[in-house]
């Protein structure tokens, strides 16, 4: 079966973003961009499923500006076989991305789609669930383990047992394939990309399509009114010892 993996180009997680002075957004000019960390985990999982002989092909997809090609090259350096960029300069919101991915699913007919559980820029955590809804397929979000149990190699009919991180612990559900899975932190540890694999990735096919070509309306549904800095906590104090700490908590903060 084919596995489709969606990857997003985001501000690197080590960068502390600054709000623009005109409050229209955050300043991402000249900051380091990387693949969303959860999407890296998603790609790694798909590549492992291929290495285990469960998947036949791994296709990486990204939606956004031309520079997303770099993110797709990284995905192919991890081990994706080919890539598709849905190129647009429109600000894409999760519903629009889910619609684009649905259009690509109709074309590619994957047995499994894996996405990161959330992007670390907008922190929405929506796209996977939305794609599952639009495709009328089962979803297994926040996955920490994926076990394909009855795939017949074509993705025609099978099941996957997915262990999910939920409040208070873990749960395992069985979903019929095709299904949509979103990756949590502990699904795997992505491999380091090696130079030979980066070179190889440059030769892998990368197709560019457009939202218009897929007949998807990607107009934003949420209008950004203002982006602002959160209020900072006032500076606290250092206490010299445990006795002072207990005294402060008891008599000043009155929390014990």
């Amino acid at each position, binding site marked *: 079966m084919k596995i489709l993996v969606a990857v997003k180009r985001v501000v690197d997680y080590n960068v502390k973003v600054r709000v623009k002075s005109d409050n229209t957004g955050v300043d991402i000019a000249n900051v380091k961009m990387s693949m969303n960390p959860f999407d890296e985990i998603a790609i790694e999982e798909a590549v492992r499923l291929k290495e285990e002989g469960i998947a036949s092909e791994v296709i990486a997809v990204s939606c956004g500006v031309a520079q997303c090609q770099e993110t797709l090259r990284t995905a192919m350096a991890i081990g994706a076989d080919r890539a598709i960029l849905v190129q647009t300069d429109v600000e894409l919101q999760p519903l629009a991305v889910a619609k684009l991915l649905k259009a690509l699913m109709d074309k590619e007919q994957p047995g499994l789609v894996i996405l990161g559980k959330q992007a670390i*820029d907008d922190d929405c955590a929506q796209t996977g669930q939305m794609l599952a809804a639009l495709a009328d397929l089962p979803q297994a979000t926040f996955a920490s383990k994926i076990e394909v149990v009855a795939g017949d190699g074509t993705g025609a009919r099978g099941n996957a047992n997915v262990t999910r991180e939920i409040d208070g612990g873990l749960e395992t*559900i069985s979903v019929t394939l095709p299904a949509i899975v979103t990756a949590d932190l502990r699904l795997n540890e992505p491999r380091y990309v090696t130079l030979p694999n980066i070179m190889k990735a440059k030769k892998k096919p990368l197709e560019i399509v457009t939202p218009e070509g897929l007949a998807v309306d990607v107009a934003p549904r949420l209008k950004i009114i203002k982006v*602002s800095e959160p209020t900072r*906590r006032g500076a606290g104090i250092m206490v010299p010892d445990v006795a002072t700490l207990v005294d402060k908590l008891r008599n000043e903060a009155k929390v014990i």
Partner: protein
Amino acid sequence: MNVLVIAEHDNQTIKPATLNCIMAAAQLSLFSDSRLHLLVMGHNAQPAVEAATNFPGVSKVLHADGPQFAHALAENLAAQVLAVASNYSHILFAATASGKNVAPRVAAQLDVAQISDISRVDSLDTFERPIYAGNALVCVQSLDAIKVITVRTTAFDAASASGGAATIEVLSAVPDQGKATFVGSEIAKNGRPELTSAKVVVSGGRALGSSEKFTDVMTPLAEKFGAAMGASRAAVDAGYASNDWQVGQTGKIVAPQLYIAVGISGAIQHLAGMKDSKVIVAINKDPEAPIFSVADYGLEADLFVAVPELVASL
């Protein structure tokens, strides 16, 4: 138009997160004369439904019952919400693992955007939410007819749970969607309060050094305070603490009365999960640790000495 809140419950009682969600819904009603309905989907959830009728502000409790709701599978819950969605202008879920699982599925089927993790209600269609791990706040206006929202529970006080007299309407339950089945779960039962609703949270970091030391040092502290246990991502990655204890951008968001960070350096992703706590205490031997920049009380000390001393003096 009315507002629908999706209840989170264990069939016996309604979870505290739902009360925070009701508070957010009540703020919406300041802008219109909408009524607030609560939807309980469960299996033999009559006790939870009865409890919900006592919530002031809730005028009606909708109850859908059946084995297909026993394990809160997203496909079944979303289908039930969709069966009543057209009666509402706003559908609110708590931004918990369960709420985040179901809400986008509902929104996409309604062909509307979902507004994640709102921290403020500005009007019927305008909401504030954190982005970039809380390093920025965005105010967004929804252009859709139905607003599907998840609520950051720490940003809203809990609504009162008694004194109301809501009516009950039994809904015909949608059939099992046949897409997923529950296999099993591992839920830790430790008798401590839930991390996201605890009044006191004690969190440990990588400096604890091992799973055994994490338990030895942190458990007495948690017991002394009746606190929930949390952990930094580094401590979870190192295997010192279980996954669902992780506090931060991609883990749990907490805002207790008192948050004690032990041996946690304070990466921005961790601060994103706890910086709205009322009082923050940090114990760390590195005076340069970023956690001290958000702490009300910082103690530069060896945690293996300071924490037992703190436990002894409480």
